């Protein structure tokens, strides 16, 4: 059962990811990206991380993708004219393929050293366990991240603010 689910989610996520980067219209890319994110969330459930899966769907498929779709529709984006220069395109694919090959060989060479699936302690991956770790051992990182999010909000507002009437636009 686990094998079938893993195969289904893995194939669907790879297919949707390929469609994300090949679809001509940005809106189609965004919708394929949602499919990829849902498949990865399914894999999180298989990996005994239900809370991370829920956060993935709420934050990524919910907030981030809505933001991207909102911008695409707000700007009424048409597909940009992608004059494909063959050498540059081929170079991009070659770099990605080379990267995949190197990582593939590395994983295969250490594959026998990787730990097998071990029985998990009870309560592994639940909200309580993750939350306890988040609010004790990683409390400082948690607080720093909240400041980072605040800065991102301020930065985003400052970037897209229209210049005031009296103020001259620098650009």
């Amino acid at each position, binding site marked *: 059962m686990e*094998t079938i689910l893993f195969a289904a989610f893995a194939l669907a996520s790879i297919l949707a990811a390929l469609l994300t*980067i090949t679809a001509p219209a*940005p809106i189609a890319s965004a919708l394929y990206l949602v499919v990829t994110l849902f498949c990865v969330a399914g894999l999180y459930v298989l990996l005994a991380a239900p809370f991370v899966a829920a956060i993935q769907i709420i934050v990524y498929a919910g*907030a981030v993708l809505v933001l991207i779709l909102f911008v695409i529709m707000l*700007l009424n984006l048409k597909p940009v004219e992608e004059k494909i220069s063959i050498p540059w395109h081929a170079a991009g694919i070659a770099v990605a393929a080379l990267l995949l090959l190197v990582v593939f060989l590395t994983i295969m060479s250490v594959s026998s050293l990787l730990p097998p699936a071990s029985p998990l302690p009870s309560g592994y991956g639940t909200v309580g366990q993750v939350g306890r770790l988040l609010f004790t051992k990683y409390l400082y990182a948690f607080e720093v991240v909240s400041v980072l999010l605040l800065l*991102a909000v301020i930065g*985003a507002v400052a*970037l897209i603010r229209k210049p005031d009437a009296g103020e001259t636009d620098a650009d």
Partner: protein
Amino acid sequence: MQIELTHYLLLAAVLFSIGVMGVLTRKNLIVILMSVELMLNAVNLTFVAVARYTADLTGQVIVFFVMCVAAAEVAVGLAILISIWRHRGTMHIDSVKLLKW
């Protein structure tokens, strides 16, 4: 067939490479931003998989921080894209070459 850590790592590597390919081959800024999201997701998958197979929750906690940084990155990135759109009227990556030597 038992699903091992190797399979998850290989899947994450494939997803990451697809993200790299998207960044290198597409010309639409918003699609490039989505490809970066793909790469971040591949890394998150690696974290959760290793956390599962070592029975250590730290990996799952790190994923939260990565997601927070990704959310911040998308917010600021989209703000920059809207800014570019206002000034240049296009989303083509070749319109943004002020810092190119």
